[in-house]
């Protein structure tokens, strides 16, 4: 009845009319039978997913750069911290050294003769001997036989000297010996090392009074160590072994493990006259 062309034209006119009609209606009523809500409900999850994905991608991207920056910054800060810590350690070492040297200096003034400070630069390679190498030698006035001390007490005696270094035998070396007194009772004996962390006070008469905690000082009679310098403290008194003498164990006043600097007394004071021998021991108990 109608040609195909006429049908198409009529359909187009109908569509345009319907469109205008729809527009006219929706302009007046925005929510058109809830269709927009339904479409919104349908599209929203996808939108949300897409939106979150983009946000996440943005966050990853942003965080990655932030992390890279933070990592670089972190490394720089760590380097800075390391440097500061190193400097801090150096300052603390200097401070400690300063304190030690000040202490030694004030102690040096109280010594009877001239003294020189020396630093320990090496220790004995063997576990059987207790000697250390000092950074002062003959050129600095050091001689064999001179005593070395610290503010805490007697350290040892110089046994070898080279032009710029010297070897110091510590009080705890098995070859070391020094004339000593129990400060409280004036009982006399010889302090000998045992190459361990302790010394022994030998030849203390059986009848002499010695107690744990007594301080042992240099007697000065050996002509090496100045009289009155602290050697150590009595930690044990044994009565076995000999009929005449007690076995007295001493813990040295100086901590030889942490020793770093010593004072070498260059001109030791002349020894006091030795007391006359007192034949007062007996083998009766």
């Amino acid at each position, binding site marked *: 009845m109608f040609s195909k062309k006429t049908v198409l034209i009529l359909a187009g006119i109908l569509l345009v009319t319907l469109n205008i009609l729809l527009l006219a209606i929706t302009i007046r009523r925005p929510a058109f039978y809830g269709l927009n809500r339904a479409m919104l409900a349908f599209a929203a999850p996808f939108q949300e997913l897409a939106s979150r994905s983009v946000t996440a991608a943005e966050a990853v991207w942003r965080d990655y750069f932030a992390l890279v920056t933070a990592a670089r910054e972190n490394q720089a800060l760590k380097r800075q911290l390391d440097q500061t810590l190193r400097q801090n350690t150096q300052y603390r070492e200097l401070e400690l050294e300063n304190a030690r040297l000040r202490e030694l200096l004030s102690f040096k003034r109280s010594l009877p003769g001239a003294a020189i400070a020396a630093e320990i630069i090496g220790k*004995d*390679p063997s576990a*059987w001997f207790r000697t250390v190498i000092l950074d002062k030698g003959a050129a600095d006035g050091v001689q064999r036989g001179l005593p070395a001390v610290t503010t805490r007490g007697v350290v040892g005696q110089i*046994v070898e000297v080279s032009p710029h270094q010297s070897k110091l035998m510590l009080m705890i070396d098995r070859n070391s010996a020094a004339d000593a007194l129990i400060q409280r009772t004036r009982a006399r004996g010889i302090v000998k090392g*045992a*190459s361990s962390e302790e010394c022994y006070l030998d030849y203390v008469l059986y009848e002499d009074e010695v107690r744990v905690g007594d301080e042992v000082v240099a007697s000065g009679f050996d002509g090496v160590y100045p009289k009155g310098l602290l050697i150590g403290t009595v930690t044990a008194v044994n009565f076995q072994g000999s009929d005449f003498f007690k076995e007295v164990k001493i813990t040295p006043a100086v901590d030889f493990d942490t020793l770093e600097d010593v004072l070498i007394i260059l001109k030791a004071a002349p020894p006091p006259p030795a007391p006359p021998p007192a034949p007062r021991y007996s083998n009766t108990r």
Partner: protein
Amino acid sequence: MNYFLYIASGLSLAICQTTIVPRLPVVTHSFDLLLPWVIYIAAFRPVHETLPFVLFMGVLMDSLSGGPFGLFLTSYLWLFMAVRLTATVIRAENPLLLVFIIIAAVVGQNALFFAVLGTGDDDSNALAAGVRVVSEQIGWVLLVGPLFALAMRRTHRLSSRRHIRKPVDLQPGAEA
């Protein structure tokens, strides 16, 4: 070059033993670090090339030590001879065997020191101290000895490779 290496390695070990090791808080009685050195050069290097260095290091260590002069020298010399003799009958390249040789050397050196010095007034104390020292030193050898052994083997292999020459009959142009 070899002479320089001997002297540099020996000196480094001696300095390490007398200045660095005593400052380590965990080490009370370290073993003599030059013992592995002496074992290496005795087992793997020619006598004429190394003996002067063993003597030199012995004298150096004796100078650094407070003991009677010649103790370290004697211990190194005896160790050197013992290792030379041992190396003729056993394969010293085995790391386990090297660790065992180091332990034997540590015990031997301490026995020598003890024999020379351990005649004091109180033998029981000295013996107890000696046992303590040697036990600790053996413990350290067990811990670090394998490293020394591996270093020795590696050095020996590198050194051997360097000294390998082409056989004359394989050189180009040589007649059979």
